[in-house]
């Protein structure tokens, strides 16, 4: 479903070229549960940004569901992101003045989905994600775990092809973190393709496939069980 062929991403910092991704090739199948690990600065976030179409490679090709998305224009990239990608961030990135429901519905709002349709989907997600009674709470009235649940509900509301999580538990205590991982694994069991970037081995090793990135290259690609 996700096919990266020989992808490189080079940044120029202070006149010097930095290869954040160095000829990386990677295939991700539908329904896979994959973790990307590596020390900071290894290029794992760059890899996630390229998969998430927030960044474009300098060379190589990227096929998403068979479609070459390497050289799409900004507007087209936004359209593909809107339909195919779900993001979960370490710092949740909820809009503080919007309620839980409004935050969850944001991708549908941006995509121009009618209010009626938005409400029916968000109501279901709120139930599923254990956020009942929290509809009209603003982010600062929610606990860290609840905020990340809202963020996950927002990420899956468009039924994306792939769910990308960047250190999803990095800002949570152990208990809440474990709950969030359980929730994401539950989504994966229901067929959701899941990619988690983490530097926490305990979380990374729960995935069925674990990729280790070092210096912009894939150092190891291990499948568990």
């Amino acid at each position, binding site marked *: 479903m996700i096919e990266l062929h020989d992808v490189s991403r080079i940044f120029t910092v202070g006149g010097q070229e930095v290869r954040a991704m160095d000829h990386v090739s990677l295939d991700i199948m539908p329904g896979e549960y994959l973790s990307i690990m590596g020390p900071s600065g290894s290029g794992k976030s760059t890899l996630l940004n390229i998969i998430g179409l927030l960044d474009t490679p300098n060379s190589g090709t990227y096929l998403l569901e068979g479609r070459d998305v390497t050289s799409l224009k900004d507007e087209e990239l*936004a*359209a593909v992101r*809107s339909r195919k990608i779900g*993001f979960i961030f370490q710092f949740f990135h909820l*809009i503080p003045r919007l309620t839980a429901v409004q935050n969850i519905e944001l991708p549908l709002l*941006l995509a121009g989905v009618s209010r009626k349709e938005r409400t029916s989907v968000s109501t279901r997600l709120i139930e599923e994600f254990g956020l009942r009674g929290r509809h009209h709470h603003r982010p600062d009235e929610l606990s860290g775990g609840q905020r990340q649940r809202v963020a996950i509900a927002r990420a899956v509301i468009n039924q994306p092809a792939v769910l990308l999580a960047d250190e999803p538990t990095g800002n949570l205590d152990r208990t809440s973190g474990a709950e969030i991982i359980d929730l994401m694994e539950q989504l994966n069991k229901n067929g959701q393709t899941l990619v988690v970037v983490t530097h926490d081995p305990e979380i990374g090793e729960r995935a069925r496939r674990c990729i280790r990135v070092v210096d912009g290259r894939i150092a190891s690609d291990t499948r568990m069980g």
Partner: protein
Amino acid sequence: MRPFDTIGFALISLGSNKVRTALMLLAMSIGVAAVVLLTGIGNGARLYIVDQFSSLGTNLVIVIPGRAETTSNTPATLVGQTPRDLTLEDATALERSDLVNRIAPINIGELSAVWHGKERKVPVIGSTAPLLQVHHLKLEQGSFLPEEDTEIARPVCVLGAKVYRELFGQNAALGELIKLGGFRCRVIGILGSEGRSLGLDTQELVIVPVAFAQMLFDTKGVFRILIEAKDQHSLERLKKHISRTISKRHYGEEDVTIITQDSILTTFNRIFKVLTLSVGGIAAISLVVAGILIMNVMLMSVSQRTAEIGLCKALGANNTQVMVLLVTEALLLSAIGGIIGLLLGFAGSWVIVQFYPTLQTTPPLWAVAAAMGTALCTGFVFSLLPARRAARLDPIQALARH
């Protein structure tokens, strides 16, 4: 994103920082109110002047002693003297024409009027019977000046309503003798209480026969001759006739200025339109200032909301959508501020009308449209820079800024 949702989203953003929004609304509304109010006053002044002149009738010709174009050449004009007075004989000579409907020579001065020890300074107009029609005056009691030879200095007078009230109170005035500048004269009529004409309040006037006025003011000349043409088409011919007649009588010199009501009206109309436009334009500058304020605040707001804008882009918003969102915020500010400003402006002009009923300060429709249009345009133009900046944010960097 649906238009309705865009507006809703923008409203939530505006509502989240109430003080900032209120300040921007205030700036916008003051600008719009200033445009509406000032153009209203300008327009009111124009209507007032036009109305004053129209009340005299548009087929009126005014003959003034002294020639406007030649005055600067003679030493006499330097000390404010006119070369040769207009006289009652001139008026009589002018009357003998088919083109003239009515003629009213005029003298003006200020004298004290006394009745039973009560004294009051009053403007006195000396004229003839046709003044009643020429000046569209209304008579309340008694009769106007008698129709007789203009040379007869009959000591009679017609009082303005206010003069009558102040001198006589509840007493009957007709037939009474008052002292006007030391001369006794009999009250023969009282004017109605409505009407102003050419800036003079007819309520405060005392009108006497023109020859009597000449005696009171100790002059041989007349201040002005008002001539009503038979119809508007003969105005030009009448003007030629007047200058011919006068120059014949004044030894070949064309030493009078002939103005028509029409030309004065057109000139005043034009002057006041330009004035109204200028004050409106000056007020519109405050709208531009409001626009710059909106731009500054939005630039600040964009840098504060960087992460949020990055998020929207990550969630699938394209550059155009981000721009539309921010421009919508600015347009909403302008529109709401503009409507508040219109209300303030109309309220202000209503207040002015309460205090000065003669000044109809209702703002013209074009000014209302222009004020709103300028408000929306400045809101739009000045939001483009912040909106473009927001649209160009790199989502990765924007999201990294937590």
